[in-house]
């Protein structure tokens, strides 16, 4: 039960931060590229990698890993935006968005882990 409250609390904070950032970025940038979600997913992947690499205790993992970064990053909005790029006739931008996000996401996760290892005097 405590586990679920930790996850839920982290998830709610992640969702609110994502919602706020999406609004703020949307006010400043009006291009076709879904910049807000793109940045959020990369930052969140980096953060999750850092957390995963630091191997902290289970409470922090549930609160920040499963909860916060899980709720901050989003897959459904990513797909939503890709589908709307395609509907606007921007087929290649849609493919580019889908592929660039996932490949840089994995690289950012690895970079987060790398930073964690650096902190711990590992690699």
């Amino acid at each position, binding site marked *: 039960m405590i586990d679920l409250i930790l996850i839920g609390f982290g998830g*709610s904070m992640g*969702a609110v931060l994502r*919602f706020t950032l999406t609004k703020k970025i949307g006010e400043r940038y009006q291009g076709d590229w879904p910049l807000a979600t793109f940045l959020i997913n990369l930052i969140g992947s980096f953060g999750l990698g850092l957390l995963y690499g630091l191997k902290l205790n289970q409470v922090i993992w549930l609160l920040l890993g499963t909860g916060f970064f899980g709720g901050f*990053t989003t*897959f459904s*909005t990513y797909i939503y935006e*890709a589908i709307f790029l395609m509907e606007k006739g921007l087929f290649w931008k849609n493919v580019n968005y889908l592929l660039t996000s996932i490949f840089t996401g994995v690289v950012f*996760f690895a970079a987060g882990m790398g930073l964690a290892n650096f902190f711990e005097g590992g690699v």
Partner: protein
Amino acid sequence: MNYIAVAIGGFFGAVIRDLIGKIIVANIFPVGTLTINLLGSFFLLFLTTIFLEKVNISDTVRLGITSGFLGAFTTFSTLAKETYVLLTQGKFFVGFGYIVLSLGGGFFTGILGRALALYLANLNINVKDEG
């Protein structure tokens, strides 16, 4: 008020993601996250389309469900993590397969959700008038 709705939605989205992730477990493949992301993509496209075309609800409730619940239910960072783990275990085929299934599957279920919503919106059921 919208922030509170997003927070409440985000709370339950993350909790239900964790519960489903624990129920659907497979050894060779992150089926739990895949199921969650495909379901979430279907419902996000279905609901945003139906809210736009047919059903009037307040912005607060809409944002709580879409940005809050479905946004936090689905996850991108875990997808990146699981792909990284598969690739670094040398499971290249499974890792790339996981990406293809996630992106292709999410795209497909999303379009399915949107198509179903558009179909329902064009039937002569006036949910909007009754609601």
